[in-house]
């Protein structure tokens, strides 16, 4: 049985989650990873996606996060996201808007590197859209 550990989800505007959790699944930029108690010190940037938090009472919360990084330290896990919204509060229009922005970014990209980056973001956002529609 997993043991609880300290988890914080922070956006620039506010502290969304702070408390004991059993497991957190983070959409890392190089793949999703789960964090349990006693994870090795680890730091990863995150890609737009869904962050899953499993609470000690068995409930699971989902948050849409975008831009930022996760910091797993011996004291606990901290996720700093530029944008963090509970999935329940997320509407399709907001994601659609972000996809439109991302499409513009792709069109405006000055060089290949920027274009590639923008395209990655775009495809990740589309994945999120699919996931939400499916839910």
């Amino acid at each position, binding site marked *: 049985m997993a043991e609880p550990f300290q988890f914080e989800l922070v*956006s620039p505007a506010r502290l969304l989650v702070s408390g004991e959790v059993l497991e957190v699944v983070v959409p890392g930029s190089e793949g999703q990873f789960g964090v349990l108690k006693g994870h090795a010190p*680890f730091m990863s940037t995150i890609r737009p996606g869904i962050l899953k938090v499993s609470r000690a009472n068995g409930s699971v919360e989902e948050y849409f996060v975008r831009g930022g990084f996760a910091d797993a330290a011996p004291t606990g896990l901290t996720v700093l996201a530029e944008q963090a919204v509970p999935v329940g509060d997320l509407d399709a229009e907001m994601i659609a808007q972000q996809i439109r922005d991302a499409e513009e970014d792709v069109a405006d990209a000055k060089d290949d590197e920027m274009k590639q980056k923008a395209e990655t973001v775009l495809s990740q956002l589309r994945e999120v859209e699919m996931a939400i529609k499916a839910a």
Partner: protein
Amino acid sequence: MASLKDLRNRIASVKATQKITKAMQMVAAAKLRRAQEAAEAARPYAERMEAVLANLATAFEGRDDAPRLLAGTGGNRVHLLLVATAERGLCGGFNTSIARLARERARALIAEGKTVKIVCVGKKGFDVLKRDLGQHIVKTFELRSVRQIGFGNAEEIGAYIRDQFADGGFDVCTLFYAQFKSVISQIPTAQQLIPATFEASEADKVAYEYEPEEGEILADLLPRNISVQIFRALLENVAGEMGAKMTAMDNATRNAGEMIDKLTITYNRQRQAQITKELIEIISGAEAL
């Protein structure tokens, strides 16, 4: 000597002013609480960000491949001063004290023969600085229509700063704002944004594993950090502005009260003098008969 009617009018007008300042004070108090909460909510993010960056930055110290946002351009010729002030006045010396700090810095830099560019955030700072440093102001951001400052506002300014830096527009960027200490004290502060400076704390040096590599994370976080720092400064400014406004309006209300008391005494004295005069006139008229 003012007539009784004049005095009455003045008392009425001072009373009206007092009502306004009193209302403004109460509005500021209500807004202050919200602004303070927002500033406090933003603090954990900015602090964590700084701690992580400090950790990463020490790894890059003295290395040649450090990102330019951290290492700087190597030059020290063109300085960009980002001056964040409030959008509205009537808040005591709040705006002027930030502008003064920025102006002193600008003068010192000009005296050293450096090129100075100024970017104003907030109308009031622009109003103060345009008088003698007008030709140095390259851009003004107005947040007047913004009710609640969001991260998007800071991101917009941050993006402008990063673009300018990428185009070689400046070497050093310093942010001016007022740190919110308490309701009665806001400290004008200058903070260097580019090249980034960090105070490395010995405590949280842990051997981390990074994904992607340190360099990439750093390259990703440094631009973000600029927006975060601007965001924090903007929020501190809003809280500071409201605090300063509350104090200023409190003083104004008290002064109006004193003025009303003084005017009322003059008014009563004059009224009595007039009654006495009229009585004397009547009595001496009756005696003359």
